[in-house]
């Protein structure tokens, strides 16, 4: 998914005219990227989650705030936005942003979330219409719900060129044993799991298995749904943060996550423009080595 220079400049001009960007640069800023193992395509290492933050209903003011967050995300070089039919109005709010900012270089990642295999295609089509994209880049089976029915359907869609990548998701360490089984049985491009300095269960088996099978890894809830960053408010950054160029706790946590070699993209959710910029910037510069990663985890554990 690339955009021409002319399209990017036009997008920037459109945004400025819409009063959305202020001094924001046109899309196309370079962000640190990772390689998707199954194709070799590169994707910026920090994406944008929409759980809770983008579920703002029909509120025009809040929808425009979300669009401004998306504009800042794209301007910083971000591309992957992740949502789900489970997230209330989040898909429609992403669609609103995409319409407002069009054209943008979005990497659209969504999910199938229905217990009925029969309803899967209808739900995917409804989600696509809400996003207002011609097709999804990635479709995942949300929390393995009815994966036996949905995964063959998604793989057929991929073969027909209706979606580019297929994956599965879980969160908070749920159903990891089954998750591993599905990773071994199906030709997946991506898995999505919870991973951060305090939730490290996936390091034991899931991340090594993903690396072994050439599956990309998307990390959700990097800040434990905001709990971790709220706990760290007012807590001074230790001197080691300077060694990796982390100006905030959020950046230190993201660098911890992205330093794992199996991780492809982390998708923190936020409602704030300054945070989205900080998050994308965290993928650049020095990453912590193994020793420093352990120090980060120990520091957070001991707080």
């Amino acid at each position: 998914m690339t955009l021409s220079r002319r399209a990017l400049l036009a997008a920037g001009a459109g945004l400025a005219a819409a009063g959305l960007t202020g001094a924001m640069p046109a899309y196309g800023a370079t962000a640190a990227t990772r390689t998707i193992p199954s194709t070799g395509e590169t994707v910026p290492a920090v994406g944008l989650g929409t759980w809770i933050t983008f579920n703002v209903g029909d509120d025009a003011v809040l929808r425009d705030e979300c669009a401004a967050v998306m504009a800042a995300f794209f301007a910083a070089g971000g591309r992957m936005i992740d949502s789900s039919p489970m997230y209330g109005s989040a898909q429609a709010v992403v669609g609103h942003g995409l319409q407002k900012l069009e054209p943008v270089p979005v990497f659209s990642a969504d999910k199938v979330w229905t217990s009925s295999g029969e309803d899967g295609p209808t739900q995917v089509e409804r989600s696509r219409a809400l996003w207002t994209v011609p097709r999804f880049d990635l479709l995942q089976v949300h929390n393995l719900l009815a994966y036996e029915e949905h995964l063959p359907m998604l793989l057929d869609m991929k073969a027909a060129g209706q979606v580019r990548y297929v994956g599965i998701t879980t969160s908070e360490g749920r159903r990891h044993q089954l998750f591993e089984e599905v990773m071994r049985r199906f030709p997946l491009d991506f898995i999505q799991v919870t991973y951060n300095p305090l939730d490290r269960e996936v390091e034991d088996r899931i991340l090594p298995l993903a690396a072994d099978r050439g599956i990309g890894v998307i990390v959700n809830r990097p800040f434990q749904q905001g709990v971790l960053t709220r706990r760290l408010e007012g807590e001074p950054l230790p001197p080691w943060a300077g060694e990796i160029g982390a100006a905030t706790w959020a950046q230190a946590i993201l660098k911890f996550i992205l330093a794992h070699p199996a991780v492809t993209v982390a998708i923190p959710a936020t409602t704030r423009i300054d945070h989205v910029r900080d998050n994308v910037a965290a993928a650049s510069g020095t990453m912590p080595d193994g020793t420093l990663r352990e120090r980060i985890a120990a520091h957070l554990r001991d707080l």
Partner: protein
Amino acid sequence: MAEWSTYSLEDFILFSARVYFRLFEVQNAAFWPLHIALLAFGGALTWVALRRPGIGIVAGFVGLALCWALLGSTFLPRYAAINWAAEYLVPLVWLEVAALAAAAILAMSFNRGFAGWTGPAVVAYAAFGHPLTALVSGRSLQAAEVIGLAPDPTAIATLGFCLAIGGRIAAVACVVPALWCLASAATLYGLGVSAWWIPVACLVVTAVASTKAMLAR
């Protein structure tokens, strides 16, 4: 370990406190200046709960039925946009409208005269005290929760009025408001709102007063 044990209440809340309270702000903006009439209705409802005049009881139940109808047709669709579970509340709200309409029809047979302070006090709190919780929790009055436009004060006022009037049909009309108070408290708790206990406290006060009235008969 059972998978359900890994979930907490917060995992079922799909939206933030800010977005939830913005619902009331948007709802209030859409219906201003209906608030003046609704506050007047709240005052009248308190007086009826205190004095229990026959025609006033009928009007009170009709007015509450209209408030629930207004909630079902305007607030719930707004709420359903951020909480898909709200769609399942729509039939319950219309059941409540039917129960209150039935209570209005049967109202003329109810007892008259003073029946205690608790019911009128709960109604007065719903009408005039509950909107002010917006200020206590750091929100502006633009996001105040008003009878007929927001579910919590409507549910609390219905509980108070039914307590004051008494009778079996009034007890039936308390079921949906009681369920709403519990659901609202759980939602507010999950959102981390410190005032989550208010709907539960109103429910407990009403239940205790109702039980005492039954035992006294």
